[in-house]
């Protein structure tokens, strides 16, 4: 009896939350397909009278969105490669090697998390400005190449790998690099993938740093481009929604493809 009532409440709740979650997305898609008369109708139309897929072509050529997507891919991709590489190396040192001051050094690493990223925004910008890297991929990517959070995540994972395999490799005369590269990394593919997926998404979603680190349209990322489109076509909701849908799609596809990695990160957050 109790469980039946709870089941009904659950169904209603799930339906409500799902509707609230999906409605803005569906409305985004519907508006993207409307024409300017559908949009300005009262009561608001939920569906276009006739779909206008050409909105997408118009919105995506109003600003060089192809270039924006390429820039975002280079930016997020570069950061992912850097973060995975540096995090894995540092995490291996912290999880597996013994050296004096290891725990203290690890704490110093973690202490970076005490400084909100925004505090570093001004000095980091001035540093890349001094290097002449403003409005270049180097400036965009370089500051994000290390993630203390990623080091922490991978260290936790490496600690769960049994040492036996490594010790076997060491007995065979493998150096630390060989152990890291041939034994630990292959065993850590899921953790590396989790970090990669999260880092990619984080960078794709970030607006503030690309906004200050780049100036020209050729160097803009999608989020910045979308915000510029908003400024240029502020009254034209069909184009804005068409561009918004295009910006959401890659992330949603990534999410569905790599869903288990997202969940793994959340479970790490939740369970440990």
């Amino acid at each position, binding site marked *: 009896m109790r469980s039946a009532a709870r089941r009904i409440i659950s169904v209603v709740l799930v339906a409500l*939350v799902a509707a609230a979650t999906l409605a803005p997305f569906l409305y985004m898609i519907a508006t993207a397909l409307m024409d300017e008369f559908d949009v300005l109708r009262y009561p608001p139309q939920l569906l276009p009278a006739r779909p206008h897929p050409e909105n997408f072509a118009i919105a995506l050529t109003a600003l060089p969105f192809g270039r924006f997507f390429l820039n975002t891919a280079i930016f997020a991709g570069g950061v992912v490669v850097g973060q995975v590489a*540096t995090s894995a190396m540092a995490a291996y040192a912290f999880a597996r090697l013994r*050296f004096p001051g290891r725990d203290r050094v690890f704490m110093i690493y973690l202490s970076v998390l005490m400084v909100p990223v925004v505090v570093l925004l001004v000095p980091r910008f001035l540093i890349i400005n001094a290097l002449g890297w403003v409005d270049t991929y180097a400036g965009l990517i370089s500051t994000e190449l290390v993630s203390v959070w990623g080091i922490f995540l991978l260290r936790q994972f490496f600690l769960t790998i049994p040492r036996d395999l490594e010790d076997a490799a060491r007995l065979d005369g493998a150096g630390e690099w060989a152990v890291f590269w041939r034994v630990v990394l292959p065993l850590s593919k899921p953790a590396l993938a989790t970090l990669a997926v999260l880092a990619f998404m984080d960078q794709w979603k970030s607006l503030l740093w690309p906004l200050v680190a780049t100036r020209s349209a050729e160097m803009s990322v999608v989020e910045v481009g979308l915000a510029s489109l908003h400024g240029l076509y502020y009254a034209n909701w069909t184009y804005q929604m068409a*561009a918004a849908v295009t910006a959401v799609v890659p992330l949603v596809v990534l999410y569905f493809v790599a869903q288990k990695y997202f969940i793994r990160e959340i479970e790490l957050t*939740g369970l440990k």
Partner: protein
Amino acid sequence: MSAPAGGRWRSGAGIAVVASSVLVLVTVRWASGRAERGLARRVAAATAGYLALVARPARGSADYDLSRLLIEARALDGLPGFAAPLEVFHGTAPLVHATARPLSPALFDRLRRHAAAQSTGSAALAPLFDRDGWDVVGAVAAWPARTAWLSWRSTLAMLPSLVAGALAAAAVGGAAGRSRRAVTWFAGAATVFGLAAYGDIRAAARDATDRWLGDARLLMQEAVVRVPELRWSLSALAPIARGTELMPGDSEASAPWRQIVAGTPRAAVAVRLAPGRWAELRAAPEEGEGWMAGWLAVTVGLALLGPLAVAFAAWGEHAAARPRQLRETVAAWGFLAPSALHLGVFSFAPILFVLYLSVHRWTLVDPARPFVGLANFEGVVHDPLVWVSLRHTVVYALSVPVSMILSLGAALVLNRQSWAVRLARTVFLLPYVSSVVAIALVWEWMYHPDFGLINYLWSSLGLRPVDWLGSPRTALVAVMIVSVWVQLGYQMTVFLAGLQGVPQAYLDAARVDGASAWQRFRRITLPLLRPVTLFVLVTGLIGSFQVFTYMYVLTDGGPLHATDVLVYRIYQTAWQFLQFGYASALSLLLFVVLFGVTRAQFMLLGKRQDYA
């Protein structure tokens, strides 16, 4: 075998202790000498300017009358209080001391070609222009004063550092704990020594500024005595002290003083032009220049080389006997090198840099970036917009607990209903994984006052339509709703994962004992969920205190600053008003406000690393 090896490490440490102290001494002497050389350069230029004012030109020529120039140059030597050793050349011939060496023709030629100050091996050489300011007809040389090695203050600081260093070096190879303690003491003493050495450099810079102002004042006062009409025009006196400000003043103080003028520090002296007529000569004080902080880093850094070397020697002595540990340490630092280097350059250096920036007026357009003390912070505290944005930031952060309560409630209902959990994971996470700007855009469209979906639903409930984002009363709440919508699914998923860690047996046992649903939640679920809750709260607060995208896209911080938050303020201050110093002070305010929360995150992670 091990005893002589240990001795080697120990004596190496001893040498390093002495060497680092010597390096600091050499640095102080070089920096003080640099201040003296700068002073000599300026005194030479001032004297050249002075001579150009007081020496009469020869008839029909812009060049000076040699006998007059000779008299004026000789008079300088006897000027009371004018201490700088000087020589004046006409062409290449020395005037003040007739027996002095003439200027080398090559040097004079260089002076003419560059028409700017040159330095010879020991002296600073300023060009002496003719009355038209056109051609270089001579030169003024000034010799920097000799600099002392150490002040009593630095000596006092160096002795304990040397003693502590000797003790630490002697402890190398002894018990690890004792050695570590000795190195810690040494590091403390060395830091004090480095600070004292920096104090010497600063004092030398201050002294050079004071003496420069004193000399410039003397020359000005002498100039108005010799050429009385100069006293009526301050601008006519300007060539004596280029790069300074000369203005009417009322102070009659004889000693130089420091003051803040328009937010920048200034060193000033009073110049007596005539009875009852005073002017004020102001210059940027050398000790207030931005690069002084660099000297602080250099002296303290060099002083700390000693303790570092001793610690290294202690470790080396220990590790030399254990090659495996040595190999592992080297490998570990190899693995850490990329991230350590990056953190140094892009995290720790920026932290120091932001502190530095916050006490300077720093813009991209103006190359002058003077030290302004706490003026930026004063501005922050007195800026009503800062308080408004801080209040909005705090109110906005309330969206985190609100969505946490909602998501925890939903998670409790859905717990252990596997179909719901699966669905939740698929659908509810969508806002969290989507483009933030795109989500802001669709919400702005739904909030549209005339054609938006939300106002349609609102008025169908019989309520009056609201301009959600356009009215100062609702804009912040409207943005918070978006934020709750984005966070909800993510937090729910985290809580669902956390709830799996609550053993059903506990809950069943409590139920058997007659505990109500609320009691079971309050006494069992919530305590067991505490780490998860804390983690969601802390990371959520850190994120929401740094919210920017919604404000940038939805409201531009408006209307009437109703959604102005700290990060938006920082962005505007730095990238629209180009005030990077002020923006740095603002970001330090954010740092202070958030410190409790970020520290909690640090502690959580630090604790968690133990049981992994």
